[in-house]
């Protein structure tokens, strides 16, 4: 019995790691620019597909590096050409333009890679299973948990323990004042957007061996990521991590304990979070 629950905890952690990678960029660009980027799920999808194509040529480890870099570049390009301009127009135009991008990205992926789900084979070093507290668990999924944890730790350190992070937090809390003391918030926006796109791309390539890459990913990944962002609060890394753990926990344990109601639970949690604490569970002090 303990083996069963160990498995479920590991499943929840692995799910949370993926959710965190998608939601981190969404959350920070939300907090920093007030920008609701619905195309974030599309960047995640591109990460998975680019990763699969690169891995077919050069192997898994190159893909693991190249796909996030490629998606970062796409993100930066999108920001410079389109989204940066739209960011100034207000929430509705942002939502709609990024929704338009979801349509376009989904169709482009269908044209280039087709409609059939594609699976990525991870490196042989990550194949197989290990024994953990009585349960056997795939090594690859442990690897995903480690990547999620490492990224969360690195981001937290970067945001909370570096000068650049301090400037970033200042821009979230009070953009006008940050500009007044010489922080170039425009450049900060671009940096955050590029980084967030890269993380989503990493999430995509890491998820590809677990959930087959398909053109529906852009939409299906978006909603859980938005829920994580709203539950965790915008613009902070710890909140995104906490939100990812809560959402993953509800999804995994909900499916085990209340199979009949599992689909409703996550949306109920979102509704409760919005009513009880619309600014998010953890939120930068100034925003509350």
């Amino acid at each position, binding site marked *: 019995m303990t083996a069963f629950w160990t498995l479920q905890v590991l499943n929840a952690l692995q799910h949370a790691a993926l959710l965190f990678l998608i939601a981190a960029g969404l959350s920070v660009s939300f907090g920093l620019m007030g920008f609701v980027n619905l195309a974030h799920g599309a960047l995640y999808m591109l990460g998975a597909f680019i990763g699969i194509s690169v891995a077919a040529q050069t192997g898994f480890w190159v893909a693991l590096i190249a796909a996030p870099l490629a998606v970062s570049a796409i993100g930066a390009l999108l920001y410079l050409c389109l989204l940066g301009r739209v960011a100034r127009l207000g929430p509705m135009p942002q939502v709609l333009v990024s929704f338009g991008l979801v*349509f376009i990205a989904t169709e482009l992926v269908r044209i280039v890679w087709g409609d059939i789900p594609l699976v990525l084979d991870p490196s042989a070093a990550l194949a197989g299973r290990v024994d953990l507290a009585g349960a056997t668990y795939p090594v690859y999924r442990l690897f995903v948990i480690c990547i999620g944890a490492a990224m969360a730790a690195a981001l937290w350190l970067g945001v909370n323990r570096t000068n650049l992070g301090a400037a970033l937090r200042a821009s979230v809390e009070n953009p006008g004042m940050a500009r007044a003391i010489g922080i170039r918030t425009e450049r900060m926006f671009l940096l955050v957007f590029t980084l967030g796109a890269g993380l989503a791309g990493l999430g995509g390539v890491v998820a590809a061996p677990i959930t087959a890459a398909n053109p529906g990913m852009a939409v299906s990944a978006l909603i859980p990521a938005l829920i994580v962002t709203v539950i965790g609060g915008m613009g902070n890394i710890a909140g995104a991590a906490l939100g990812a753990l809560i959402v993953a926990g509800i999804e995994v344990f909900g499916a085990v304990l209340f199979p009949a109601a599992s689909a409703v639970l996550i949306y109920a949690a979102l509704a409760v979070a919005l009513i009880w604490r*619309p600014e998010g569970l953890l939120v930068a002090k100034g925003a509350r």
Partner: protein
Amino acid sequence: MFRLDAMRIVLLVLLLAGMQVFAMLGGFFGQEIVAEIAILAILAISLDLAAGFGGMVSLGHGAIMGVGAYAYALAGQHGLTPWPAALTAIAASGVTGGLIGAVSARMQGIFFIMATLAFGQMIWAFTFSARWLGGDNGMGGIARASLPFSDLSQPMAFANYALCLLLAVFLLAAATLSTPFGRSYQAVHDNAARAAAIGLAPRRIRITGFAISSAIAGVAGILAAQHMQFISPAMMFWTTSGEVLVVLILGGIGTLTGPIVGAAIFVTLKYWAAGWTDHWHLVIGALLIAVILAGGRGITGEAERRLRHAFR
């Protein structure tokens, strides 16, 4: 503030007459397309009432429409004849919207969108897993309405019936916006603080407005159920609501005629493009971005602005 001016009346008459001619000349296929346009247009008008005139952008309108469709089917199963069943369904949608509005009305912007998404998805997930509602198989064998002078099982008669309902919903929405309530509703959208200062109750007005919009979404649901004579939870999924939002933005938000233009273009493009490509969403996505970058007024809004300039 909404005005049913000459320009809008002319556009409405042209649209309805155009669809009527299209249904008459287009054969069975044309008549089915006109019915589909009318359903989508009614749903888009209902969303225009909430989003365009009340500032409440909803991603739950598909689910609210679905509540109407399912209530209509259930009432029919329990022996109600189509017209009383339709009234029950409209009430069910209105009450659902009122409840969602009551919880969400104090939220603004993206939080309101997320709240309606949450409630809409809850309704979808519940229906999807409820065996007594047919689960993901949906429900079939739904009766069309009966009229003394026309047989609605004929596609042409049904297309005409759908167009009449569209006209009725349009006039009802326009009339609602012209009542004292409608004026206060738009005032709350324009500036809630000032509206409160002159003695209006913004929260209650927003909730009522959302409930009225939801009741109209219920009409779209009933018409959709009667059209296909089959319903499934797919219509409740949030992407349906997202699609209607796209239709509304393309056509022109806050105009009431825009939703009809948007629905006509959307459905026509879908069937026209289906003949030679599978990727027509590419065009929709590009159109959506172009409309927003051009100022977000949509096709109708842009045309109205140009015409006003030309006649000045």
